[in-house]
């Protein structure tokens, strides 16, 4: 039986945002095995995706080593690259879906399959983009009033409609570090994940703000417990945050930064009622694990492109004309310590399900929704013109799709 491969070589957040397209592809052709190619460190997460048959690692470090080792010539490099692919034991693919608009994704797609859908579908060196990829690039550059979510645009890129059901990641059965096990199994009434870090420095929330949020949660949400989420890179920041917290809140906080694998994080997020953070991979992962996400979107993050996928999520979108206060090297705000500019209490009120205003001086509150054209966000529960235009966008871009591939997809 022919197999298909979906290629997603970007970071955690993009991989999580690829779950809807994987789900849609699998339900479009349930009999066809669908594999995933993703960065090596994310393979363990990919293996939890229910719609994926096999997950193959793409080891960027190893490729970089092959390309830059000083002692090898072209001949040896090529032999080593061939050996690398042989060791991966890829099966033959009749079709590769490439979600990455960069040469590595395009080349990988052509190495592994003769037929490619997505960037590179006109040839490995052909810069002509398919309609949906061109649309995404234009959005990234112009930041227009689009409302097609990135995860749904991935579906368009692969020529399927968004999945009929929102995909969720189930908790795997595995052991957790003792302290985390105690917190998760103890079934606290409200478990809130706090996503400390972000891949890009300009998306990091200052520690003083997290400090205020934790204090506010502890004071206003009875029996709430807070879990600090992050990778190795956030260990230091998490320790610093713990030092800043008043002793009376410490028994309500557990530091999970750098202490979990991705499957363990999925297990924990499955037990969280809420997850709060900026536009980061763990925030999206939390949403896919069933937690309700509250995003603080600033810098270049835009709710309509990358808001947490699904329903029941919130995003505080900072006024695009403003940028948050600058951070120093230790992730601490340099301009005073007031949290007045961050929607701290507003976020706590959301978690308390209280009525509140949907705007502050600097932040707008958006709520997630979903229909047949995918996920979208509204303010005050009202769909505006831009939301309605998504249907037109889908229809227009789908007509521009390459008929060869449409045929292949339908087959």
């Amino acid at each position: 039986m022919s197999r298909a491969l979906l290629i997603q070589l970007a970071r955690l957040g993009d991989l999580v945002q690829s779950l809807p397209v994987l789900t849609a592809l699998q339900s479009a052709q349930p009999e066809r095995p669908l594999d995933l190619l993703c960065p090596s460190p994310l393979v363990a997460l990919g293996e939890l995706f229910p719609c994926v048959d096999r997950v193959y690692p793409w080891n960027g470090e190893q490729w970089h080593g092959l390309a830059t080792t000083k002692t090898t010539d072209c001949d040896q490099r090529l032999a080593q690259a061939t050996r690398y692919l042989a060791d991966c034991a890829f099966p033959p693919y009749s079709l590769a879906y490439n979600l990455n608009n960069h040469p590595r994704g395009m080349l990988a797609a052509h190495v592994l399959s003769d037929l490619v859908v997505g960037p590179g579908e006109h040839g490995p060196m052909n810069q002509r983009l398919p309609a949906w990829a061109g649309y995404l690039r234009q959005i990234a550059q112009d930041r227009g009033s689009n409302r097609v979510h990135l995860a749904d645009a991935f579906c368009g890129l692969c020529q399927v409609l968004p999945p009929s059901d929102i995909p969720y990641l189930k908790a795997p059965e595995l052991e957790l570090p003792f302290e985390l096990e105690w917190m998760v199994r103890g079934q606290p009434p409200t478990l809130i994940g706090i996503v400390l870090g972000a891949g890009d420095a300009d998306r990091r929330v200052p520690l003083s703000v997290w400090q205020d949020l934790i204090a506010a949660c502890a004071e206003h949400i009875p029996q709430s417990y807070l879990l600090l989420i992050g990778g190795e890179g956030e260990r230091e920041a998490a320790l610093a945050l713990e030092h800043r917290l008043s002793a009376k809140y410490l028994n309500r906080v557990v530091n999970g930064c750098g202490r979990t694998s991705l499957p363990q994080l999925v297990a924990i997020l499955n037990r969280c009622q809420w997850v709060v953070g900026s536009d980061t991979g763990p925030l999206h992962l939390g949403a896919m694990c069933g937690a309700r996400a509250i995003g603080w979107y600033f810098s270049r993050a835009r709710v309509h492109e990358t808001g947490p996928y699904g329903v029941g999520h919130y995003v505080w979108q900072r006024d695009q004309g403003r940028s948050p206060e600058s951070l120093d090297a230790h992730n601490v705000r340099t301009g005073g310590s007031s949290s007045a500019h961050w929607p701290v209490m507003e976020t706590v009120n959301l978690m308390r399900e209280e009525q509140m205003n949907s705007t502050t001086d600097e932040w707008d509150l958006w709520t997630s929704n979903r229909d047949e054209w995918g996920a979208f966000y509204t303010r005050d529960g009202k769909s505006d013109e831009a939301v309605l235009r998504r249907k037109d966008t889908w229809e227009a871009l789908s007509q521009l799709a390459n008929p060869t591939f449409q045929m292949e997809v339908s087959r």
Partner: protein
Amino acid sequence: MTVLKQNVGILRQLNQVFAAQILQAPGGALSIQPAKSGMPTALFNSRYLHSAYDPVREAERWAEERIKDCQAGETLVVLGVGLLYHVQALREMLPHDQIMMVVVPDLSEFADCVSVRSLEGWGERVMWLTGSMTDMAVQVTQKAKRVRILSYEPAATVHHDTYEHFRLQLRDHLAQQLSGALHIMVVGPIYGGSLPIARYVVNALEGLGHRVSWVDHSPHYAGYKNLDTIRDHRLRLTVQQRMSETLAVITLAHVAEDPPDLVLALSQAPLTMAVLEQMRRKKVLTAMWFVENFRHLTYWQQMVSGYDFWFVMQQAACLDAFRKAGAKQVSYLPLAAEPDIHQPMTFTQEERHEFGADVSFLGAGYRNRRQILPSLVGQGWTFKLWGNEWDNPGPLAPVLQRGGARIDTPTTVKIFNATSVNINLHSYTGDGFDPEGDGVNPRTFELASCGAFQVVDARTLLPALFDESMMAVINSPDQLLPTVKTYLHDPARRVAMAGLSRKHVLEAHTYGHRMKTFLGAVGMASPDRLGAILQGDRQAESLVARSEQSPELIPMLKQFPQGDRVELVDVAKSIRKKGPEARLNREELLILMMDEYRQEKRDFL
């Protein structure tokens, strides 16, 4: 049959003359004793050459460590004989077809060894090198292109000087065979005496066919100089330091954009330890040619571990000092001349009037010069003093030219050529001649290259570079005046000597010669990287011949001229030229994929 007879039989199969020499060698160089393990061990002058407990295990550990670096196709040359446990261990770990040679500097030592240790089963697969150091170097280079030297220190130390001589011979012979082109990044200083040398080095390397990227920091001089307007001394030093650090990061950016095979820095190049460490992490080899007196400028002590290779213009004490301070590789590389710049010339009437003199000195006003040069004033000849840093010149005031302005290189050449007797006094901050004077200054080579006559103060390293038929050498300040008088009245002798000195520069002391030596040394020290490239391993014809692992590559490689160096980036470029509609085979896709990763720079700075 005794062990010796059996061994001689084995050696006879390899080299009859060598076998006969062993039989005639007196022996007795080594003292043989049983080790605790029961195997024989050896002492030389009461020092153990092998373990007193288990020489076999010790040798295996030595070989296991060395073999990690050895690459297929390299010829291994072992220094250090002793009882050859290390040679046997290494031979038995190597592939059967890998060539291994052992330098035998002392037949008696070898005879002692083969009297107690059998060569059977491994000694037949070793090339035993004997004879003069030159003969041995020739034998190596006739058989091998890529040479890796492995030194078994306990036994090699016994013949340290001999092996050093062998290394130099081998380096020079290998340098003659270089055919491949490196990409070398030359990093110059912001200003100072090493700046023109950096230019000469760039020209010389380009002249040898290498691709050179020159990171020229001299355009930043005006800004750097402008910092002198900061009056507070500590503040000024801090800002100057910061500026140097920024220039170091700029250098790193150049390295990231177009990674070279080797970075060659000249003294005073603004490279910091942090930047050098980053280059090391990125696998960029670095070398420094320290063209300063190591006793006067001592900042090298803080930088010594930063560079992979050091080249210095002094020997013995200097080499020892660098090694003790932690230099991984340090070699003697004297200065030289650039004959395209420093050459004989003719003058206009005006030029002869301005620059001509019976006697001249060009240089900065160091203490010893201020003390010695006044003796040349008022002697009935014309004496001109050129150069800067002559504040308060005292009795030299009447002869100081251009008010003590700095003299540029073209003017320097005119002064040298227009002077009958050029005085060349090496700088010294004390009185008289530097009692530790060893290194030879660039002026010596430049005067010679101009075909200009010079009187120079004695330096311990001078006789190995020029002899006294080429220049007048004085051993003390009081010899200066009579020597000048003698030669001033003997123009024919002056012309003959200067002619010989110029001829000798052209034969042996240009920057081209120095760069050949330099490349021979770095190639020998890094056989799998620089050595392989220098020997032409990355040239198209060589790659085609060795493409048995990936025959699909051959058509791509055949597009390049045979002698061109071909790297991943070149093959990738040729693939991209096929255009956006091209269909690519798997190998072409993989080449492009690797080229994408090659361009990754995100963590360079």
